[in-house]
């Protein structure tokens, strides 16, 4: 197990993506915790921010993450029907899907924004999910749309 984790530690010569994940306290954060407790390794590129509920996540969180250099933002909450607050994730679903469409309309790559449902029992799903999205964002490379904004290279 320890050997396996070592093999997956990051190679400093390779570019490492920065992934910001907003996890709901009740399901996804507990799921990530379970992954840790079960010794299921997942890439260290992900930086977890715990929020009370996926319904707490405002699109400005995502924009701010991109501004601060995130290459991918993930929002994860309880499965529909399992919300600790009964309906927070249903509201999040409406808002975040609309936000993704808005990003797409502006031409900001929607592959940089992921939404997932991970329950407290799905440590393995969490571990696999993080591996998958890390591989995907590594293939996409740095988020140049936003890094160009920050350096002022876009626009007339």
């Amino acid at each position, binding site marked *: 197990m320890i050997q396996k984790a070592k093999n997956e530690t990051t190679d400093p010569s390779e570019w490492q993506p920065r992934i910001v994940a907003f996890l709901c306290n009740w399901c996804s954060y507990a799921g990530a915790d379970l992954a840790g407790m079960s010794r299921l390794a997942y890439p260290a590129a992900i930086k977890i921010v715990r929020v009370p509920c996926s319904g707490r996540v405002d699109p400005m969180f995502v924009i701010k993450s991109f501004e601060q250099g995130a290459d991918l933002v993930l929002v994860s909450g309880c499965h529909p029907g399992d919300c600790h607050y009964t309906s927070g994730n249903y509201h999040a679903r*409406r808002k975040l899907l609309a936000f993704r469409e808005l990003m797409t309309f502006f031409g900001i790559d929607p592959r940089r924004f992921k939404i997932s449902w991970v329950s407290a029992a799905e440590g393995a799903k969490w571990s696999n999910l993080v591996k998958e999205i890390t591989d995907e964002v590594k293939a996409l490379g740095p988020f140049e749309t936003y890094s160009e904004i920050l350096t002022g290279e876009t626009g007339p």
Partner: protein
Amino acid sequence: MNVNSTVTESLQSAAATLLSEGKVGVVIGYGRDAGASISHPMFIRKPEDAERLVFDDCCFGNLAVYLPRDKVRSMGKIGIVVKGCDLRAINVLLREHVVKRDDLVLIGVPCTGQGDPLLHKCSVCEQHNPEGCDMVVGDPVEQPAIDATQRYKDAASLDDKSLEERWAFWSGQLSKCIRCYACRNVCPLCYCKRCITEKTIPQWIDTSAHLRGNVAWNVARAFHLTGRCVGCGECERACPMDIPLGAINQKMAQLMDEWYGFHSGLSPDEKAPFTTFKVDDPETGIL
């Protein structure tokens, strides 16, 4: 200018009656000063001034923008001249409990469209005759059948482009933004006493006129209006840099229409899409 004299005359007498009987403290309508190129908003507080009101085809402004303002409310009960499109904005204000129906006297005006050539919103308007007003001045006009495919045409023409082309377009457009907030100030539904862009702890939106903050601002503006915007087009008309803000609002209205069959502002009793949900809402692309 093409003054609608029958509407104007009955509007003037209705406003004078309301004011002289003390039923309202102010009538908000349109007036035109000599040499003005459009009919601008006008506040009438004395019956003898009612003759300054006009209604023509250059009454662009959405007067509902004044309703949430404290200074206007302090004038007493408000009589307001509403076209069908303005009524939609008032319906949203009523739905959000920003104004009370009892505090308003709605003076509906049948409208065949504004501007020459006709504004896009007027060519797809289904509210030529405002419904649910306290009084309607002038005769009802014919409601032409509209081409629903034209409703979201500005958004659709951008949707046809690739992601890179869209970013090239929008980064060019949004970098023009000078952050004057005319789009916000003219919007009848942007009534927050303190806007997110003015908050500094934490500062969500960079305030300098730089693409970084401009993108954040326009995303925030569009998102705060999703499921609320009635498509009055005032933001785009007010924008001094001619940023096609209407296309963004159209895109979000189109989504609400396609996903939830929702059109904002058709009734004061409706529920906004983001205040409610269904268990079987669309759920594509969630991992």
